Each structure stands twice: as C-alpha cells, then as structure tokens.
C-alpha cells in the first residue's frame, strides 16, 4: 500500500487484530426484543457469519430468488456473480431486509446471522440494518449534510456524545481510506466530493455504525477505473473487520477481490467455491460458460 493511510490505526493493517481495550466493544448488534440477556460477546471476528437457508424472494408473482442456501464466512470476501436479473442483488438485499422495503416484495426461508434468524418475528428490522450495513450502486451521500455529518448520520440516533461522534466518524473515514482526502473539509457538503470519494464516504457511513456484515451492491458500477481500484483495495482491508458480500457484474473484479465466488442463474444458486476454482476449473458447465464469456 502507498502513503494514503499514514493515520491508519494498527487494527486496520495487522491481519488479526486483538480487540483493543480502548476501542468500543463490539457488543451484540441484535438481541431478541423483550429479552435483556445479550448474546455472548465473542472475540472480534467470530461474529459476522451469515447463513442463508432455503431463501426465496418474490416481487409480487415474480419468484426472483429460488431456494438459495449459502454460507458467508467472517473474514472473507464473497462475490456474487451472474447475468443481469439473476437475483443476485435481490438475494443480498434479503440479508439486511431491504428487500421488503419495495412494495409487493416478500421473502421466505431463513437468514441466520451467527445463528440468529433475522426474519424471526421478534427481530427488529432497524437493528438488523445496524448489524448488516449496505453500500449501493450509485453513491448516495445525504445532500443536505456535510462530510462528517454524513459519516455520523447513522450514529447520531444512538445518543452518542459529540466527542464520541467525532472520534468514530474519524475512525470510519480512516477505515474507508478517505481521511487524508477530506480531513480539511469535514464541514464541506458531502455531495461536493468526487464520485469515488462519495462512494468511500458511503462506505465510511456504513462502517461508522460498526456492522458485522457489509453488503456491497455493485459498488463500482458508477465509478471510473482509478476510483474502482481504490475501492477494491479497500475491500481487501475491510474483510478484517466485517464480512464482505459484494455483488458484481464485473468478473475481473470478482477475481481480484473475492476469496469465495458464488455464481447465480435465474434466481438459483449454481455453484459456490474458492474464487480461483470458479474461474479456472468450475464444476458446473453453466459456470464455465459464463466465466468464459459464452453468455451473460
């Protein structure tokens, strides 16, 4: 890495950071409403394992995701590839329950976060989204807010003090590799940054609430190659603190950033495996045809 992150915290550069005493404790992001017993606090990166079990998603009568069962392991980057309309975005949006924000959309099956079913009736959807962050296709900073207010937008409702907000905002900006570029204009409008910076601002905004999982839905599709490269470098660092799930239509990108690659077709899971295997020696013919450019 270059000199872009001189202020980077050691936790970001070491492969297996010990939880620091001064860092905010990663408590249970979700607990069953009504029960005050917290989930046992595990060691930093034992949390954030996601498992889909028989997940189905629908838009009205359209069956977009068909019985997908899949594990997303902590400490790994999982890329989801497949042709347009294969249900990859929909599947990912089921993990933080954003799918149900679309009218007429519903999902069935289980999404387990460290064994806890996120579709359980007792689960608060707002809490799900604090544990599972998301970055969208187009950078969408809040236009009325400054850079720093954008980053802390998700934190402000937790009643954090002003000083704490600034610290965590700064930490998130460092984590998103944006601190050096914006430290002199934290109070400037977030929408005034370049496209790539805006997207990293959105990543910082998602990281600030300290999610266990970060979903990225084609995060580079609106960016130029240089900005794309920066985000890809960032993804490699992020996996040390969050489980990364990235949807991409760009197979080279999947090959560059992902440890595990998932190939989907027509709403169904076709194949999942280590990225190099998927791209060099897949088991399924359809995967091979897709990764060699025969369709899609």
């Amino acid at each position: 890495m270059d000199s872009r992150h001189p202020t980077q915290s050691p936790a970001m550069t070491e492969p297996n950071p010990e939880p620091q005493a001064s860092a905010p404790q990663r408590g249970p992001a979700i607990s069953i409403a009504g029960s005050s017993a917290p989930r046992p606090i595990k060691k930093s990166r034992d949390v954030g394992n996601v498992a889909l079990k028989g997940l189905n998603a629908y838009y009205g009568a359209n069956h977009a995701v068909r019985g997908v069962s899949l594990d997303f392991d902590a400490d790994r980057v999982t890329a989801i590839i497949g042709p347009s309309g294969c249900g990859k975005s929909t599947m990912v949006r089921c993990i933080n329950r954003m799918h149900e924000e679309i009218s007429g959309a519903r999902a069935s099956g289980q999404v387990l976060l460290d064994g806890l079913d996120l579709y359980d009736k007792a689960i608060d959807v707002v809490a799900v989204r604090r544990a599972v962050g998301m970055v969208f296709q187009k950078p969408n900073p809040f236009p009325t807010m400054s850079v720093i207010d954008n980053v802390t937008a998700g934190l402000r409702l937790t009643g954090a003090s002003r000083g704490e907000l600034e610290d965590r905002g700064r930490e998130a900006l460092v984590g998103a590799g944006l601190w050096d570029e914006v430290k002199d204009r934290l109070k400037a409008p977030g929408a005034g940054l370049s496209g790539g910076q805006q997207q990293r601002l959105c990543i910082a905004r998602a990281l600030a609430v300290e999610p266990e999982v970060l979903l990225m839905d084609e995060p580079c599709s609106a960016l130029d190659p240089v900005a794309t490269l920066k985000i890809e470098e960032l993804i490699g660092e992020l996996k040390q603190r969050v489980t990364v799930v990235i949807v991409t239509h760009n197979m080279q990108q999947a090959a560059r950033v992902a440890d595990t690659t998932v190939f989907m077709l027509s709403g169904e899971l076709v194949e999942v495996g280590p990225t190099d295997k998927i791209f060099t020696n897949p088991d399924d013919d359809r995967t091979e045809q897709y990764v060699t450019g025969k369709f899609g």
Partner: protein
Amino acid sequence: MSDHALLLDRGNLKRRNRVNRVVEVVSTIAALLAVAVLLIVVGSVVSKGMGALSIHFLTTPAGLFGDTSGGISNAIVGTAIIVGIAALMAIPVGLLVAIFTSEFASERVAHPVRFVLDLLNGVPTIVTGIFVFGLMVEGNKQSGYAGSVALAIVMLPIVARTAQEVLALVPGTLKEAAYALGIARWRTLLRVTLPTAAGGLLTGALLAVARVAGETAPLILVCSIFGQGVLTEPSEALSSIPVFIFQSSESPSPEAHTQAWAAALVLIAFVLVLNVVARAFYARSRKRMGA
C-alpha cells in the same frame, strides 16, 4: 422529371411547410399575448396607482367611507394578520397531508386523497366564503378568524399538492441509504427527506400565501365590516387590502378610485415579489435533489 422530384419544395410538401409556418406564427403570437396581458395589467396598475402611492398612504389608516385623506395601513396590518393566521393553520396541515400521502399511505389511499385535494383546489372561493359565513358568522359576527379560516381552506390544497410534488422529487436512493443505516422511518423523514425537500416545501407555502393574499370573495362575506383605525384583534373584523380595493372602487369619488389602484399596486408588488422569491427557492431545491 427526375427521381428527385419528391425533394422539391412544391405541391404537397409546399402545403405542409406553409401549415407548419402558420402554426408556428400563431402559437408565438399566443405566447406574446400572455406576456402582454401581464405587462398591460401591471402597467395600468402602476400608471393609475403610482400617483396616490406615498409614505402617507402606506402609514395612515383609512378614513370614514368617502373620506380619501387616509391610507391603507389598517388594511396592510389586517391582511398580514388574516393571512398569517391562515398560513399557521394551512401550512402545517398541508405538509402533514403531503407527508401522509407520499411517505406513509399506499397508492390506493394516496390517489383519492390527491384527487380530493384537486377538487378542493377547484372549489370557487365564494363557495368557501359562504360556507365559512354559515359556519362562523351567521348568528355570530364577522371576524378576522373567520377570514383566516376561509383563506386557510383555500391555501390547504395548494400547500399539500405542491408539497406532494416536491416530496416525490426526493430521490428514493436517499431514503434507501437511511433505512440501510438502521435509521427509523420517522427519523429518516425528519433528518433526510424534509431537509432535502425544504426549499421546495417553502416554495409551495409562499405560493399559497401569495395566492390568498389577494383573495377577496370570502373576505367580503366574513370580514368586511370593521371599525376605524389600525385594528389587531382577530376576533373582530379586520380591514384587508383586497376588501379596501373592492370598497374604494365601489365609491363614486375619483380620488377613491385612485386609492383603489394604489392599493392594487401594493398588492401586486407583494405577490410578484413573493412569487419570484418562491421560484428562487424552488430552483435551489431542485438542484439539490439532482432534478
């Protein structure tokens, strides 16, 4: 005859070109006419009202009927109070209606609400006036409050409809971003949606104020028999600029007519300024929303 005969400007093609030119000229004339009407109205108000317009006219209350030595200070104060109270009633309710239809209601509910607001917008204001007359004045007395209620009814659909249009312009991706951060619906509304739309919402409110500031028919029915001097108690009838214009123009004296023109000039200046300011806010707001 060559094969290129069809390309020559003659026959059918010539006829079509001529029709095209006629339509262009006629529609241009129509557009110029619209601009001309505004210029003629404003011009005649200025030329006829300017003579009577003075600091004295603006700062002195009207005299007794027929006495034209006074001014319109009581009418200005009265209009400010009546329209102010109307705005306090109509703007919050209108915004809430818009928030309901665009943020909470399903399309099946929102559609009829929009339709009802359009109908309400089309109700002649004299009908609104007679309704408020029956509701608040009959068996009671005229009052500034009655005028405010009537004007609030006129304002409500304007505020609500413009606010709906503006809220619909707020990009869905922003709300999505907020929800994905675990920000609750109502908080997203307060911290993201409303601040993003603020300029446009203000525009709607200002346009509604500008619209009712000149509203005359309901005020004649419910708030037109008032005492002398500058009155500020809205439970009594108050003077207002439109009613002053109406009553002065009914008078046989030419001085009173000039006063009516001068008051009209004050009113039209206020409305024009408000419109220009409102549009500036709207332009800023649209830019912010990337529209």
